[in-house]
């Protein structure tokens, strides 16, 4: 477990020489305990202290990267068992499979389908992260060609599920793209050497935790460094329990031998792949290989992943301020909502759909929904009146009519009392905004006569 400030202090020279930039050794120790400083800053620390403090600071679950550049995928590097304890950092990577022995047309079609599995949700892009290339042909030439084609067509990093011959050929064909080598369990030795020589990440598959212990040691002995563990479960329960055990070994037991990101191949003949994936996303799966490329399956899984990997301290939010939607003029309607991304993008989408150019005022409520912000006292008559006078909307439009979310109709009196604005109560659901805006009498937005 992480060391306390006092435990760290005991390992330091206790001379208070300030070379680390902190006034005392204890002050430095406190910063280290809080994760804000590392032992390297103290030039006088003993080798023993460096060793102890260095490994205590290392993440309990190491990081493995697949791919490079913009589409790089990071696995592991997590510190807690429950997201409320801090947050989960690196979203479960989703790989969709394709086999190299598909007829060329079907192969290309499948890659296009995989590439299309990318969606915009509350202002974030969520999509499939990798292509998992299965080796049905058994032929190194065919497999290498398919790997190059998959990389070319999708730009996504690859998971190469193949025995050593094809694996080596494909690794050469996509050199520089940092694929994950994923050999069958029986071919670990040869693949581990390959991973060591080429400095590539390696998926180690073996039966259960005990089998993984031996296999991971063997892979490390062969020089492979970035390892991903697959306990080769036969069913959903085995997969989830294996995943939980590996995470607990890393976090609770600080077991260095088994601390690895996990991978699960949920392709044929794995039973209940969808349900297993939905359980493994909250339960610590680092990489999932799926056979389905149906958006009706993938979108819910990606959405679950987006939910689970949102920082609980910080809802996904947008910059507060004045947003113009469409070609606004000084008589465009003005609507107000909150800066919770889910709220903002829902409302914005509906305003766009109305094709009525409009101004959207986005109130700063620390990323809360309309009702939550109201219940928390952050979206009030006072705060809205303040925004109306301070955000500059009064110079952008000639009228003084504000459209309020229907859910907080009760705020209208107070707003009118505290500002020079008149309030129109809009619909409760933003989906009703398009017909509502289209039916508004233009007279409501003529210049204020005052």
């Amino acid at each position: 477990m992480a060391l306390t400030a006092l435990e760290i202090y005991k390992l330091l020279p206790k001379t208070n020489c300030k070379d680390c930039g902190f006034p005392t050794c204890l002050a430095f120790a406190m910063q280290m305990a809080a994760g804000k400083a590392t032992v390297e800053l103290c030039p006088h620390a003993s080798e023993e202290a460096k060793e102890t403090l260095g490994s205590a600071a290392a993440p309990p679950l190491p990081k493995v990267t697949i791919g490079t550049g913009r589409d790089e995928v990071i696995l592991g590097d997590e510190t807690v068992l429950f997201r409320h304890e801090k947050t989960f950092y690196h979203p479960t990577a989703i790989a969709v499979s394709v086999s190299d022995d598909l007829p060329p047309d079907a192969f290309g079609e499948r890659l296009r389908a995989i590439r299309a599995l990318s969606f915009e949700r509350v202002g974030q892009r969520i999509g499939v992260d990798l292509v998992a290339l299965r080796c049905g042909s058994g032929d190194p030439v065919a497999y290498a060609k398919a790997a190059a084609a998959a990389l070319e067509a999708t730009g996504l990093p690859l998971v190469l599920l193949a025995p050593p011959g094809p694996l080596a050929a494909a690794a050469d064909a996509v050199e520089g793209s940092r694929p994950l080598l994923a050999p069958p369990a029986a071919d670990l030795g040869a693949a581990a050497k390959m991973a060591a020589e080429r400095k590539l990440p390696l998926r180690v598959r073996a039966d259960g935790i005990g089998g993984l212990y031996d296999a991971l040691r063997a892979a490390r002995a062969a020089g492979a460094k970035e390892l991903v563990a697959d306990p080769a479960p036969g069913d959903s329960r085995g997969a989830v329990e294996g995943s939980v055990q590996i995470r607990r070994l890393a976090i609770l037991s600080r077991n260095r031998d088994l601390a690895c990101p996990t991978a699960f191949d949920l392709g044929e003949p794995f039973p209940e792949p969808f349900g297993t994936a939905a359980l493994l996303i909250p339960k610590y799966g680092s990489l999932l290989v799926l056979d389905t490329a149906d958006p009706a399956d993938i979108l819910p899984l990606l959405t679950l992943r987006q939910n689970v990997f949102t920082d609980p301290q910080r809802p996904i939010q947008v910059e507060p301020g004045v947003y113009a939607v469409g070609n606004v003029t000084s008589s465009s309607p003005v609507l107000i909502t909150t800066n919770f991304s889910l709220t903002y993008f829902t409302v914005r989408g509906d305003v766009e759909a109305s094709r009525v150019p409009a101004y959207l005022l986005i109130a700063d409520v620390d990323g809360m929904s309309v009702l939550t912000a109201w219940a928390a006292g952050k979206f009030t008559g006072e705060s809205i009146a303040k925004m109306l006078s301070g955000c500059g909307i009064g110079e952008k439009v000639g009228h003084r009519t504000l459209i309020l979310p229907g859910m907080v109709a009760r705020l209208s009196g107070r707003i009118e009392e505290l500002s020079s604005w008149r309030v129109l109560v809009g619909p409760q659901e933003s989906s009703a905004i398009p017909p509502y805006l289209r039916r508004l009498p233009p007279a409501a937005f003529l210049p204020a006569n005052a």
Partner: protein
Amino acid sequence: MTVALPEQRFPGRILPVTLPAGPGGSPVTVGGQNALPCTPEGERPNLPAVGMEVRTGAEELPPSLRSAIGELAADPVSLARRCVSEWGARFLFLDLSLCHPDSGGRSVADGAALAREVLDAVPAPVIVGGCGDEEVDARLFPAVAEAAPRPVFLSYAEEKNYRLLAGAALAYGHGLVSWSPIDINMAKQINLLLADLGFPADRVIMDPLTGGLGYGLEYTCSIVERIRLSGLQGDAMLARPVLCHLGDAWKAREASDASETSWGDADRRGRRWEETTGLACLAAGADLLVCRHPGNVARLSGAAWR
């Protein structure tokens, strides 16, 4: 090599609670475990149970539900029968929204009579939900409590109405669902208030409000996990079975919008939206799930091994 596996042992245990059945039916008992979900250690005498919602008010069904239960939408008694006998629901959540002014506005007497009819028609345990209108529910729950021919659970008791609900439930031997809006302190508070009234703890299940997938689900998952951890660590007021009602999953645009073809078939997507919501709740520690799609009863029950 055999590796010593970590275990998380706890002093507390979740209180077992039984939803009673009618003659010939099987009661549902949940709780009793002293371990976290998805782990191999500890004892878990009762697995999570999956039930189905029977809705009564006028509403427009999403495509996925229209094709699955549309023909029964106007006939709650038949729907209730099918849920239990055909689709494997272990209990029912009867929602009396027909009494809501906006979705039928039927009288409280009609609501109570319908509850009675459903209870007579199926032997499975039943949770009876109100219509959501505060003023109507204040009359509806006492009427249901009186009319019910056998013990049910009333959903739900919150800070505003718990005296009324506890009174009605105590007078006729019913149980209660204690509700709170994704807030562990409020969840504890409502259980304390019920305990102060002398309401028996083994007749209370907790509903911490379930946000749908993409619309607040993560808040629910974290609250369920925190409730479960606190309960196992010895907080008796939180050591109670948790119910997750997946109804909000169907409110998501993604669960119903057939116009967005790049999202795939709306029928399958809607079912998946609810299934995914339910699976995440199971992983967090839910003991009771309420779903609406018949196909999801078996899917969610299949994952209820923990």
